């Protein structure tokens, strides 16, 4: 099969899968009747996705085929919901247990924007570097020397930024800072030991 035909069929299978995922969702605006057998629909969508990966794999490597399918799905799911059939949207009668709770801490809560963001920004950076160093050296000979340095460098960002993003969950930022500060020498020691 030529690459062009493969890409076309792969895309069509992804389109089928995206359509099935969309119509199985409670907010779909294509069918008047909601889909009752969601499990079957999701199974068919999964089968379509697997087929798409196998088709792309004829000319792409396995990793490239998987990520090509991911990319197509992201693109289609962001555009298919824009195609609506009904002038007045169908209602979604899904009920959800309320996630948000207003407790006693609501009135006394202080966001402490600057303290939390600046504190965790500076404290988590050395921790991220040391943790990544530890992970990189733990890999041993599985990672060639040059590749290990690059791997350590690349892993810093996600490990550093996640605490910055999640710090606002904390009610006691100083406790978080103390934990992070105490982890720094721990990972430094672990790193020295493993080196």
């Amino acid at each position, binding site marked *: 099969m030529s*690459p062009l035909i493969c890409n076309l069929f792969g895309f069509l299978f992804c389109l089928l899968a995206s359509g099935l995922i*969309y119509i199985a*969702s*409670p*907010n779909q605006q294509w069918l008047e009747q909601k889909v009752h057998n969601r499990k079957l629909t999701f199974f068919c969508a999964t089968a379509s996705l697997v087929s798409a990966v196998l088709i*792309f794999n004829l*000319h*792409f*490597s396995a*990793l*490239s085929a998987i*990520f*090509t399918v*991911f*990319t197509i799905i*992201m*693109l289609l*799911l*962001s*555009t298919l*919901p824009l195609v*609506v059939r009904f002038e007045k*949207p169908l209602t979604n009668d*899904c009920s*959800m247990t*309320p*996630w*948000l*709770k*207003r*407790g006693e*801490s*609501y009135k006394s809560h202080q*966001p402490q*924007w600057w303290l939390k963001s600046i504190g965790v920004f500076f404290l988590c950076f*050395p921790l991220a*570097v*040391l943790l*990544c*160093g530890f992970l990189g*050296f733990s*890999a041993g000979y*599985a990672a*060639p*020397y*040059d*590749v290990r340095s*690059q*791997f350590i*460098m*690349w892993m*810093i*960002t*996600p490990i550093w*930024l996640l605490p*910055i*993003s*999640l710090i*606002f969950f904390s009610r006691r930022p100083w406790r978080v800072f103390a934990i992070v500060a105490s982890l720094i020498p721990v990972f*430094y020691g672990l790193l020295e030991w493993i080196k």
Partner: protein
Amino acid sequence: MRLEVFKDYQQVHIWTGILSGLLLFICFVGGAFTMFKGPLNQWATQTENLLPAIEKHQYDDLLQTVLEHHPEAARELTVHWPASQPQSAPITWHIEDHDTHEVTHWQASFDANGDLLSEQINVSAVGDFIDKLHRTAGIPGGDDHDAVGIFVMGVVCILYFVAIVSGLIIFLPTWIKDLFSLRKGKNSRRFWVDFHNILGVTALPFHIIIAVTTIVFAYHDIFYGSIKGLVYQEKPLFDRPAIEIPNLDFDHLVSLEALNAAVKTKEPEFEAAVFRFAGLGTPRSRVLIGGKMTGEWIRGPEHAFAIGNPYSTEPGYTEMLPSQAGPFANIVTGFFTLHFGGFGGNFVYWLYFALGLSGSLLFLTGNIIWIESRRKKSASANKPQQNRSVIVLARLTVGATLGCFIGICIALLCAKLIPHSSYDIVYWQKLGYYLGFLGATSFALSQVPLKSTRILTTLLCLLLIAIAAVSLSAVTNSIVPFTEIMVALISLVLCAAFWLTNRHLIKKQPQMIADGVWRKAEPTQSD
């Protein structure tokens, strides 16, 4: 989840989004067009700047001849093999003045008699210009690697990452109820929130990858410095032993075929397209060999890379090649290829082009939501006094977003219409972009958004039609006729999209409240 935490994350998402949104819009639009950097460079090449193509067996002779007549080219020189054609010349190099940082471009080939043809040229490289725009958001200052804009975008992407996580957190409490919903009704803010959610949630992995990789691209030197200080300390970061080269004369360079064959011993599917030589004649000589490997997990946007010794047939550093990479190398390569979209050839380039444009809408809708939620609705007969911040952001959003497109269109037209041999085309296409962008932004700041949007989208449609016309008229003489047709086609598709937007605004105008934000506030009866 505690209600106060939810409200905190709402504020975090709002402020990180507002501060980073417009710059990210420019980067995403630039990034979408950067997917076709190479074809755009070829599209902009003018026929009078072309040198004759040569046979594959002539490349080694040409390289030796160029080094003999232009020894300054040994510092950095690129050989474009047939797989990378069409190019303006088989061999190109540039000379940078260390004091002024001005760069002059040279190219060389053989004429019909086999004599050296070498000349200094002005190179548009409009694709590279758009790539720089993509990396810096158009913020001027600094050199290529140390551009000010790149450092700024690093900070912006830190805010972007926080915005992504905070957006996910505030979406989670109602995700079942809101996923894929798109509620059109009297409450326009609801519609924009739903649209924003669809764009953000469905492309979440893409946005995370872009944010993380951009931060690393901006600050990798700082990260490596930190790793050296805290982790490696006295040990070297990289283990690449110095290459022993007994004889540095240019006539001891191995042939290009031999270099290609050396890489093929490790990666049989590899076919060299470009050879970037650096430091020839010095102990630091090296060659970066780029080869096309469509559908593979590659390091570069277009090519897989191997680094070799131009004086030896040893394969060199091949850990970046797909079949040589272990799991850790694949993770590292993955970051590169998932940012560049290089893992699937032209097919994935088009997907990333679409994702780039739809991703830019995420930032636009975010700004619109902020404006709509703060727009004071007119109450009874009183003219509402809108906050200055709301008015400014509404106008700035229109100006910056449309100005980005207008600037790129003007740059493309400059690259195509202005004779490269007579003018400094790099200067003129840069001037064209900034005039378009700043002009549109200034105009939008002085007018109500509805009026400026209609005028700017009309201007944009005219520019896109002009690009299409210029492209189609160049098909017969172009080195890349198919690219000319595709540029024309995409221009017309974008023109249609903006024209439809304009028509939609005209249709919706009577329904838009004249409260001084999108439309001019109408005088009340008491006035």
